[in-house]
């Protein structure tokens, strides 16, 4: 069925956006009082909350390494999707935890805290596509607020192909019916990619074009992230 659903009518997507238009983005920091750092990020109807605890002592001792261990737990709340999702860790959330961890790890200065652990919790409270990138953005903001030494903030966005058109920031319906979709994260001021995941079929030219679109969008999101952090100190 993929690619057969009419998702673009008269050059506009079902929610009225142009192909390269993002949904409304909202970012807030320090939303969880008990965490060392936290953030709330909303991409349209997708909402993620991230909280960071640590670095703290890593136990049991045999897990300790010469560098900081980063643990990420991504999870979706039961009411985040249309049909109730059974709570707890499943195959998908284990995979996405790893994906988010790998997207963040290149930016964190792991050597600063040997033998310690940093715990990052990403909760999706409402899901409408692109949850992993929304979670990554929230986690990166939360890390900065927790005072974790980082080379740069990590910014993420999604790009996809629907009805033979390349679109930015896929929502739920588009995600489910896309011909291809790509999750992309980068350190914008360093111009380095930390996550590039793709699913579907694309030509070489299309991939190049999508990376360009994604990196431009990430730079815009980067400005929003900076604004959100600075906004907390006014």
């Amino acid at each position, binding site marked *: 069925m993929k690619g057969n659903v009419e998702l673009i009518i008269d050059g506009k997507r079902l929610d009225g956006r142009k192909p390269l238009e993002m949904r409304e983005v909202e970012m807030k920091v320090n939303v969880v009082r008990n965490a060392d750092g936290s953030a709330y990020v909303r991409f349209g109807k997708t909402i993620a909350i991230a909280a960071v605890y640590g670095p703290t002592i890593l136990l049991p001792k045999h897990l300790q390494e010469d560098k900081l261990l980063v643990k990420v737990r991504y999870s979706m709340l039961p009411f985040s999707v249309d049909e109730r999702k059974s709570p707890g860790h499943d195959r998908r959330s284990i995979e996405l935890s790893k994906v988010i961890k790998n997207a963040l790890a290149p930016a964190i200065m792991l050597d600063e805290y040997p033998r310690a652990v940093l715990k990052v919790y990403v909760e999706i409270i409402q899901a409408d596509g692109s949850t992993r990138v929304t979670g990554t953005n929230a986690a990166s903001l939360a890390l*900065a607020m927790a*005072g*974790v030494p980082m080379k740069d*903030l990590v910014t993420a966005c999604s790009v996809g192909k629907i009805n033979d058109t390349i679109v930015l920031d896929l929502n739920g319906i588009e995600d489910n019916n896309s011909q291809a979709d790509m999750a992309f994260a980068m*350190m914008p001021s360093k111009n380095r990619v930390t996550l590039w995941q793709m699913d579907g079929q694309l030509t070489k030219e299309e991939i190049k074009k999508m990376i360009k679109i994604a990196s431009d969008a990430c730079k815009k999101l980067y400005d929003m992230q900076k604004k959100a*952090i600075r906004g907390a*100190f006014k």
Partner: protein
Amino acid sequence: MIRKIVLPGEYLEEQRGRKLGTGVYKEGTKVFSAVLGTPKISDTEISVIPLAGKYIPKVNNMVIGVIKDVEITGWVVDINAPYMAYLPLSEGVKEFVDIKKVDLSQFYDIGDWIYCQIFKVPRNKIVQLSMKAENARKLEGGVIVKITPYKIPRLIGKGGSMIKIISEKTKTTIIPGQNGLVWVKGKDVEKAIKAIELIEKESYIYGLTEKVTRLLEK
């Protein structure tokens, strides 16, 4: 008015032979901020003072810790860092102690708060403490307040000015540990804590001393 705030990855300046302090890293000759904080750029050093973050133990820091365990030849101390610290018997007690006869809990027991100095931090961060510093002691009574470690210098103020104001106006004794724990004991502890919390919350603004003075005079 607020101080300038930099974010991780933000370009600060060219190094030009200057020393790199905390919270920064370099790529080639360019210096970037590694943390969220306020930059401190002088002719000799570039650093960023973090606005948040956990305490990283450093040699000679005076810290406040709580005894977590009493072992045969020393004490395990929690110093509000990602690592437990160890206070060996030789550094903890001045006189000779025969460990076969004496129980070490008579000096420091589990739950006791101590003000001590960090004297050794090896690469693997097995921190060792010492009670041999002049003002190191066991903290009897009082209240412990936890703030961001990097805000302790703001609490102390230039030449100890800020802490002196709070101490005098509230008639309390305040001992700030560089690990972010502050010990308060005296008459108006509640007001002193309020002042400390104000410093923690608004450390990035100019004219903080006046604001604290106003709070204390209320």
